[in-house]
């Protein structure tokens, strides 16, 4: 009972503190902008801990954060192996292959009306295929190891990347292209000096969407067959063993990896598209 009451009080205190900070006169300083979400997250974690212990929630429903952290700390070598297998080998390689393939295809689509009319609808169709249906088939084709996971990721990221790049390449106005023509610029000169830079905000949209899709694809694909390592494999077997703390530890790894991946792409975007209105301020 005491624990539940403490949780309530802490919740109220965290709320009050954040309200004060967010509406205070220093609200726009960098320090406060970092502190507010930090306090919010910490409050949730501590309240979670107190409630789970106070209400004696069973482990299989929800383990307390300290237990997840303990499991995380004691299984770093397993988690690291899973991370390398799923994220680096599966998601990252598939991401790079899928995005590069989509980029090249986007240029082909841009150059040819036939491809635009023929390929975009097919790409749309492929994107509409449910991942849980295609993943087992790709595992059959490419084997249990990371290659099949990369293939699933390629299928998942290809279409959003293609559509965004094609839209980006159409971003330049007819007048800008006319200007290039009066300079007697060739297709590729105008492509590299005008259209590719102008397409960058769109391309990075595709790249950012694809980061999360890649991780989801790689994890889900492991549910349909994998060697005895990998985040998806660990999650499905740990659920079977009722080791929910291990499942949560993998979720933490996935969340960290996904956030850092997205953040890294967003940071590159900030550098490349510094001139775009969306990056100001």
């Amino acid at each position: 009972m005491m624990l539940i009451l403490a949780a309530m009080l802490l919740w109220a205190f965290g709320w009050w503190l954040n309200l004060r900070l967010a509406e205070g006169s220093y609200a726009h300083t960098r320090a406060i902008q970092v502190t507010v979400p930090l306090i919010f997250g910490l409050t949730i974690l501590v309240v979670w801990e107190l409630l789970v212990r106070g209400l004696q929630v069973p482990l299989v429903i929800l383990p307390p954060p300290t237990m997840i952290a303990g499991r995380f700390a004691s299984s770093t070598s397993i988690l690291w192996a899973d991370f390398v297998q799923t994220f680096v080998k599966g998601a990252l390689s598939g991401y790079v292959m899928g995005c590069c393939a989509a980029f090249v295809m986007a240029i082909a689509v841009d150059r040819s009306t036939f491809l635009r009319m023929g390929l975009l609808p097919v790409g749309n169709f492929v994107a509409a295929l449910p991942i849980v249906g295609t993943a087992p088939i790709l595992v059959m084709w490419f084997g249990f190891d990371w290659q099949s996971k990369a293939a699933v990721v390629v299928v998942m990221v290809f279409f959003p990347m293609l559509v965004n790049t094609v839209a980006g390449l159409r971003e330049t106005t007819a007048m800008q292209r006319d200007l290039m023509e009066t300079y007697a610029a060739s297709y590729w000169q105008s492509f590299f000096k005008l259209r590719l830079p102008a397409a960058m905000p769109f391309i990075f949209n595709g790249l950012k969407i694809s980061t999360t899709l890649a991780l989801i694809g790689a994890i889900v694909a492991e549910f349909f067959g994998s060697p005895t390592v990998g985040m998806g494999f660990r999650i499905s077997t740990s659920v079977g063993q009722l080791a929910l703390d291990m499942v949560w530890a993998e979720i933490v790894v996935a969340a960290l990896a996904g956030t850092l991946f997205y953040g890294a792409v967003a940071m590159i975007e900030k550098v490349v598209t510094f001139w775009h209105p969306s990056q100001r301020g």
Partner: protein
Amino acid sequence: MNAAPEIVVEGGASIDGVPLFAPLSLVLRAGEWTCLLGGSGVGKSTVLRLIAGLQTGATFDGAIRASDDQPVVPRVAYMAQDDLLLPWADVARNVTLGARLRGEKPDAGRLTRLLGRVGLADHAHKKPAELSGGQRQRAALARTLMEDKQIILLDEPFSALDARTRADMQELAVELLQGRTVLLVTHDPGEAARLGQTIAVMSHRSLDHCAVPASPAPRRVDDIEMLEAQGALLRLLRERAA
């Protein structure tokens, strides 16, 4: 630079069989400003784009010739209402765009001189977003001049500017484009009356050459003769549209 040529445009244009403008004969006199005045959609920009060799979507039946029988298109520089500056490149890199596209090293001395003449010497390393509308248009003018072409095609380059900036830009353009064959397409009778050494009013059916004020261009903004010409042009424009 060799002497700028005279350009003769003769012919008519149609879109999918529907006439856009009737066969006309337009002469851009060598080294002078010709103003082509007309309402929206009469095909005046099409005439300009035909001279520049750009796609128009219309079928042109006729010929465009230079007095020295050299090809026209490679000697053309183009400037539009939109400055068309690349937002990621600074002023200097925008002005030297032509050279950079061809993979040549831009002429640094010429760049400095031109930026000085358009009054952007202190802004060479600013991005277009940091400039005012007038400054951006001056950068576009410097870019047009950087190419050192004999034929300059201006497609309503000053229409988006406020009245004072527009008057300044008109004077600057006349000063800097001296000796070149200039075609200015505009819908503003005042602009044509101020700048034109030849003024033609275009409609779907006809092309009328109009009387030009005697004083040299650019005429003073309160020049009586210029204001009379402006009034006459506006009247003609409205009659032709009716």
